[in-house]
């Protein structure tokens, strides 16, 4: 059964605005008119705001990973089984379930009861698997879900594990990197890439070169689009 989730920050009980994280579930296995009604969209989790020592809410919930863990474990248990030809090791050090517990599913007895709670009709039992097809989230919530930089970050990229530079005044920005760093996700996964800026106006003149085998060998033009289209759009302006 495909379901989708929604995650956003809201205000509860006149607390600080956008401090409480709310997760809602929606059934995606229904026609649009049915599935978009409130009956099939239920809030399932509330994340508490950050508190100071006096118990006053001081900001939005930042420990989203820990709060989401019970839900993710349930989704692992109820989700589809890992195929034999698919290489996946359950990351138990991150709180994942064991490999053999994945994809258990839940058995369902589709019985119909009458007013006296007696089963009048029964069908054969089947095992239901729940598939999380995606998350509705706006920019701040998405940054928390994906562990990326906030939407207010200057040239923040959600794909690269590239490094920032510390500028005077405890401000960190992407300013160009002298050392190549390995990209750990996305289309350039496993490649050592380097971000070099000829001037400090890196915002306007950022371009990427491949550090191996020689720093002077330029990457194909396509790499620019693969890494981050936002930076390219800014560059070409």
């Amino acid at each position: 059964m495909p379901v989708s989730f929604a995650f956003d920050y809201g205000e509860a009980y006149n607390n600080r605005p956008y401090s409480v994280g709310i997760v809602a579930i929606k059934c995606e296995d229904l026609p649009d008119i049915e599935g978009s009604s409130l009956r099939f969209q239920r809030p399932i989790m509330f994340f508490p705001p950050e508190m100071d020592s006096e118990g006053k809410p001081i900001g939005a919930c930042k420990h989203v990973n820990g709060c989401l863990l019970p839900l993710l474990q349930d989704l692992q248990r109820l989700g589809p089984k890992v195929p034999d030809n698919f290489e996946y090791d359950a990351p138990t050090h991150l709180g994942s379930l064991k490999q053999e517990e994945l994809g258990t599913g839940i058995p369902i007895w589709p019985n119909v009861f009458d007013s006296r709670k007696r089963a009048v009709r029964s069908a054969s039992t089947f095992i239901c698997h729940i598939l999380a097809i995606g998350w509705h989230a706006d920019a701040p919530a998405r940054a928390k879900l994906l562990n990326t930089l906030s939407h207010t970050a200057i040239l923040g990229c959600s794909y690269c594990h590239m490094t920032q530079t510390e500028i005077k005044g405890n401000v960190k920005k992407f300013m160009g990197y002298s050392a190549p760093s390995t990209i750990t996700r996305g289309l350039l996964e496993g490649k050592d890439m380097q971000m070099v800026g000829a001037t400090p106006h890196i915002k306007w003149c950022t371009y990427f070169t491949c550090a191996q085998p020689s720093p002077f060998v330029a990457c194909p033009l396509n790499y620019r689009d693969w890494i981050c289209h936002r930076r390219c759009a800014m560059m070409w302006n």
Partner: protein
Amino acid sequence: MRDDVELKLSEQDQKVRAQVAQVRVAWDLREACACACSMLVRGCVLLTHRKASIHLPFLTFFVQDSPPEQHGFLGTHGFSRVHLLLWYTLFNDLCFVPFAHAFFRGVFRDFMLMVLSTQEALKTRANKSTDLPHLPGYAAFHMKPADGLTRKQRKECTDRMNRFIFTSDFDRPPECPVRHGPSQIMEQLMRQPDCVMPLLFVEVR
């Protein structure tokens, strides 16, 4: 006939390929020059042992570089737990923004604010380089500074909006787009184009 068609296609292909090659050579040259400049800058930074101050006529930065395994400022705060624990998810398709959020609170709200802004505001927007992609001299959505509203027109809009009475069908009635433009929520913004805007801009004789 078939041979002729193939010949024509191949000629076109050759032309396109020649153009692409020209562009590519020019680009490679430009990139090589820029790369040489950056190597010079990088050399300076390395020579001064990780800490350097780059002085330029208009900007001064104190840059501190360190190898990636020592510093903690990454582009991401680690891997996504959702992506790691659920084996069937793809990182690129994990999150999606609903249409109502992206359109009404994104595109439509920007367009509404741009239509309702004054001529002075449009002038500054046209000169802003960080704005949406636009032609020089124009603001976003191809708005000329002369297209902006005057103060009298904006006051007329607010006066009309104050006279509107919304029935209880509107759970949260839309507010004045001139006074409360950016602070409205999706539910209110959805009502703006069909219920508010036609009456707000209608000509009265």
